[in-house]
Each structure stands twice: as C-alpha cells, then as structure tokens.
C-alpha cells in the first residue's frame, strides 16, 4: 500500500526531517514536485538536506512554461480556460457569500428548536448544493479543455508527459511541496499526474497536501480585508478522496468559533476536514489513517477535536 505522509507548514517546526529516519520509505532518490514554488521550483538543495535524500525535480512548472512557449494554440486554449475558471469562481463567490450569511444567521437564531433546526439543515444543504454545482461546472470546463487539447493532439504536451512518466518510473517516492496551490494544481492537471502518482509513496506538506483530496478548499479568516469564506477552487487529484486539508489553521482559521467550524465541517461532509499546523503529521496507508500527531479535525458542534489513532 503506498504511503501518504502529510505535514503542516515547515516553519517554525521543520518536522520533514523525520523523513530522514523513516524506514518505511524505500531507499534512494525522491522525485520532487515543487511547482507550487513557481519560479523557485529548482531551489531544492535545502529540501534535500532536510530530507536526507538526493532529489530529482520533475520540473512541472518549467515544463509547463516550455509547453506554452512551443505550442501557441495550447497556450491560448489554456489562457481561455483560466479566464473562464476565474470568471466562474467570481460568480460562485457571489452566490456563496449570500448562502454563508444565511447559514450563519440560522446558526445564531434563537428561534424555537423545532422551527430552527430544519432551517439550519436546509441552509447547510443549500451550501452543499452550490458547492456540488460549482464543482460540476469546473469539471465541465476542465473536460472541454481536455477535449480541446486532445483534439489538437499537442505533440509538445505529449512529449513532456512522456518525459515525466519516464522520469517518474525511476522513483518510488514523490515529494510535493507547499506553495501556490492553484499553480500546483494546474500543473498537476495539465500533465495528468493523478494517474501517475497513484502507485507512488507521497510525502507532502501544506499546498502539496491540499491537492491530494478530491476537492481543494481555499480559506483565510485573517486577511487584511477580513474574513473570506472558504471556497472550493478545484477538484484535487483524489489520492485521499475523503480528506479536506486546512494547513496553518492556527493562523488562518478562526478555529475558536465552534459555529464557524461546524458550518465548515457540515458543508464538506462526508469528507473529513483536518488541520495541518506546523508540527502536525498524518500518515496514511493508502487512504487509511494510521498515525496522527498534533492533527485536529473540524467537528459539527465541538470545534476542533484532536485526531487519535489506535
């Protein structure tokens, strides 16, 4: 069973160092996907020292740039896709805001229990329905795009995918770094990485951990403009389908607000919403959780609860 080892931000606690002593991972070089670092993708020396392993960068960010440079038609199709996705996200956000306001109002209401409970449930169901609708529409745009590029049969893209697959074949473990989760996801989807990573051991942190779920949720309760409602940005690559990850929740999430936490938990159920703060580790055998250190899950009514394993 391939391992999935997830970590939170590596500052202030750099617990990625534990990997160096992890005997469950096969010996040898790790492949690295650091596309979330964008132009800094290649700066993996320090990472290698921390992991205590030689690394082979798969260069997804750089490869994508190359594809776009060499195939103008594909670049144009990609740009159009991105614009449509951004526009769709804005529309979704506008609707989401209203439903979140309503859901919070229902939670705060002091109306009689038999009157308010069905309203609360319905308010959450409306949120879930919107999320499903949005995911379907995002999938539709992705599918149309994939069909477009298949139709055009970009040899440039095909060559890069073949090169990645060939390179990946030499490595049993893949490290996926943190960084810009949207950029990382785009590169993973562009090269069809979900399929190629299925059989690999995965070590990932922050954004790298987020992309493993079936849906990736952006969140931040403490921007300078105030709270932003968590929103689904894209399907993940689905290696841990029943998980939604919230890295650095200690700083980004108002986790002491049980109402807020409860809405999030109910909204993404049956997926388990977990925090990945600095110092946290989650280890899965396939999709079965085996070990948890300092991780918490969001619950319907009790705020954050520590995850314990047998």
């Amino acid at each position: 069973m391939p391992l999935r080892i997830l970590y939170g931000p590596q500052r202030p606690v750099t617990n990625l160092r534990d990997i160096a002593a992890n005997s469950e991972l096969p010996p040898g070089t790790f492949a690295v996907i650091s596309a979330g670092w964008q132009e800094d993708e290649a700066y993996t020396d320090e990472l290698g020292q921390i992991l205590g392993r030689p690394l082979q960068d798969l260069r997804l960010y750089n490869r994508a740039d190359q594809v776009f440079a060499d195939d103008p038609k594909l670049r144009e199709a990609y740009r159009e896709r991105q614009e449509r996705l951004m526009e769709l996200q804005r529309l979704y956000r506008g609707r989401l805001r209203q439903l979140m306001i309503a859901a919070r109002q229902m939670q705060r209401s002091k109306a009689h229990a038999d009157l308010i409970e069905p309203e609360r449930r319905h308010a959450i169901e409306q949120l879930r329905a919107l999320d499903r609708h949005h995911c379907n529409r995002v999938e539709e745009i992705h599918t149309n795009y994939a069909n477009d590029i298949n139709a055009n049969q970009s040899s440039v893209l095909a060559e890069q995918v073949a090169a990645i697959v060939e390179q990946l074949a030499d490595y049993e473990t893949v490290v996926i770094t943190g960084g810009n989760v949207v950029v990382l996801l785009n590169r993973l989807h562009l090269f069809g990485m979900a399929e190629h990573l299925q059989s690999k051991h995965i070590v990932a942190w922050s954004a790298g951990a987020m992309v493993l779920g079936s849906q990736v949720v952006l969140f931040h309760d403490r921007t300078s403009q105030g709270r932003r409602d968590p929103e689904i940005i894209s399907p993940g690559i689905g290696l841990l389908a029943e998980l939604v990850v919230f890295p650095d929740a200690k700083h980004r999430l108002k986790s002491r607000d049980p109402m807020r936490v409860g809405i999030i938990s109910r909204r993404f159920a049956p997926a388990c919403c977990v925090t990945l703060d600095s110092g946290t580790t989650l280890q899965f055998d396939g999709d079965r959780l085996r070990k948890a250190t300092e991780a918490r899950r969001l619950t319907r009514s009790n705020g954050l609860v520590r995850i314990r394993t047998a």
Partner: protein
Amino acid sequence: MNPSLRKLVRKRAPNAKEIDAFVGASEFPLVDGSDITFVYRGSADSISLRCWISGFNAAQPFQRLQDTDLWALSIELPLGSRIEYKFELVTNGQRSLIVDPLNPVLAHDPFGANSVCQVTGYERPAWSLPDPGSRRGTVEEQTLDCKAFGESRTLQVYLPARFRRTRRYPLLIVHDGADYTRFADLITVLDNLIQSLEIPPMVVVMTQSPDRLKEYGGNDKHAAFIGDELLTYLSRNYPLIDEPRARGLMGASFGAVAALHAAWKNPGVFDCLLLQSGSFAFSDLGQHERGPVFDSVVRFMNEFREQPGQPAGRIYMNCGIYESLIYENRSLVPRLQQQGIEVLFEEARDAHNWENWRDRLRNGLTWLYPGPVWMVYE
C-alpha cells in the same frame, strides 16, 4: 486632569523634588482613557496647545499649577485617536513653537517634527515596523529627461526581493515618493506586505516634484508626464504587466489631487488609485476660501465633479476625521460611486499627516493589489 497630577497639586504647591519624582515616573502626555493631560515644566508667560484638529480651538491655553513651574491642560479625545501637536510658548512677548520636551514620541514631516499623542486604543501597526524576517527589496535611482517640464527628473524605483526580468509585475507610481519613504516607512511596508503575500511583488516608482503646489494642482503637463513619458519609460525598462488593472497611482494631500487628475486625463490607463487625505477642495457656489494656492485645485475639482468620467475602476480613499478636508473627501465618494467606480473609503481618528497615511497603507495596497496569500500555503 490626570488623577496623579491632581493629587500632586491638590493640597499645596509641590516642591522641586516632588515634581522631579512625578515627572520621572510618568509618561507624557498623561493618558487616562479619553482624558488627556498635557504638561509643560518651565517658565513662560503663557503656554498653549497647538494641534491641527479641524473644529478644535486653534490654541488651547494651559493653566499654571499652584506656584510651581508646572503647567497643564486637559482635553478629551476619542479612544483610538492619534494627534500631532506642539506647545506655543510666549516668553517676554516672544512666541515660539516647540515639541513637548517631556514626550519622546515624535512624528516627522518635511517641515520638521511634531509631538505625538496616542490615545488609549491606538497602536502603531506591526506591519509598518521593520521585520528582520521580511526579504528586502532594492531601490535604484533613475534619471529621466522630462519633456513635459523641460528638465531631468529623478525617480526612485523599488524592485521587490527576488526581482526577475522573466516575470511581469504590477506597477504603482507614488507622488511625493521620497516623503512617503522618509515619513511613512513605505519601503518597510512594501517589504512586509510582499513577504506576507498580502500584496504581490510589484514595482513601485517614487516621483518627487520640485514644485508640488504648482505641478499637482490639476496640471496637464504633469498628467502628460505621468501617463505618457513616465509610463513609456517604465514599460521599456521594467517587466511590467501591460494591463490597466495592474497599474496604479498614489498620493496624499496635493499628491492625491495629482494622482486623480493624471488618471482622469489618461482614461483607461490606470485602474487603481490610492488617494490619501486628498486636497479635493471645490466650490459649489461662489469663491472657495482655501487661499490662492488652491485655485488650480478647485478649478480641476469643480470640472471633475461635473464630469468625473471613469478615472479608474477601483479607488481607495482615506481621510482623517480631524482634518478640514474630511468634508471634501466624504462628498467625493458618492460622486465616484455613481460612475460605477468601486470605492473603499476609510476614516481614521487622525489628521493630515504622514503617520496617518502610513497607518492606512496596508488596507489601501491590499485592496487594490490583493496578493496571493489566499492561494499560498507554504
């Protein structure tokens, strides 16, 4: 009056040693919630408080306490306020304005320094302080032959940490940029906000006019310089995102007028405006009362208010509620919104000074240039 001071002078005139002890143990001005007691120690014929708060008596006289060399004045200021002030001393018929000798907190501007009173609830924002954890950008000096004004102009160009020519960057042009750097810690703020991903790495160009009262008052040459010459030069020499949404202008006071005018004269070029305590004087009827230096500003603002057009898509404005310009700023907001412009307007319990503008930079910059913090999970 501050309770400790009242206790000191209540029964009898304290002696010098007692006053020394009191002064040594206190921070001045004495702040008790919203009650502020200013204290001066020394000899004078009279002492007054000078602070630039609109609607407040221009000079507030101190009271000499008992037969001591202590003078005091108590006023009330709302919680969270921050004001700058000086003492006006009259000695032997001679007037002088001095900073508060007992208060080490000073604010600086091009004219010197003022003392600062921070009422309970005010705190200097942490993101405006130097942070050793923030990567630092660089500032390079460039000289541009300015055809509009027929002379060379020096620019300071801020490049973010890890600047690369293979990337494209948003642009912000700052009026009175050297003053923003010296008095509003602009470079520190940029470094910190970029580090925290609250704004994207961006190129910030600081311009400084040798005659701002003339060049910033709705001056077409200035608008041509900004929108044409300067932008052309910057686009040729720096990797900039070639879209209006990634270009902005910023300024305070007359600088805000200049930014608004330049955007108005170059429609569709700059989508973002950051306007702080804009000197947006206008006259609905008859003559304005702000003096001749405002003549060109009023001419522009009257024309602008009549036909605002769309100088930008998004405008951040802020103004201190203790400024006389608060009325002009408040009244401009709905006029802009009627044009379909997205406006974020903020007021602060402060006045027309650089530290007020500094304290609002995060809100303005992050709203106009939202950074990737939402998408980055390190």
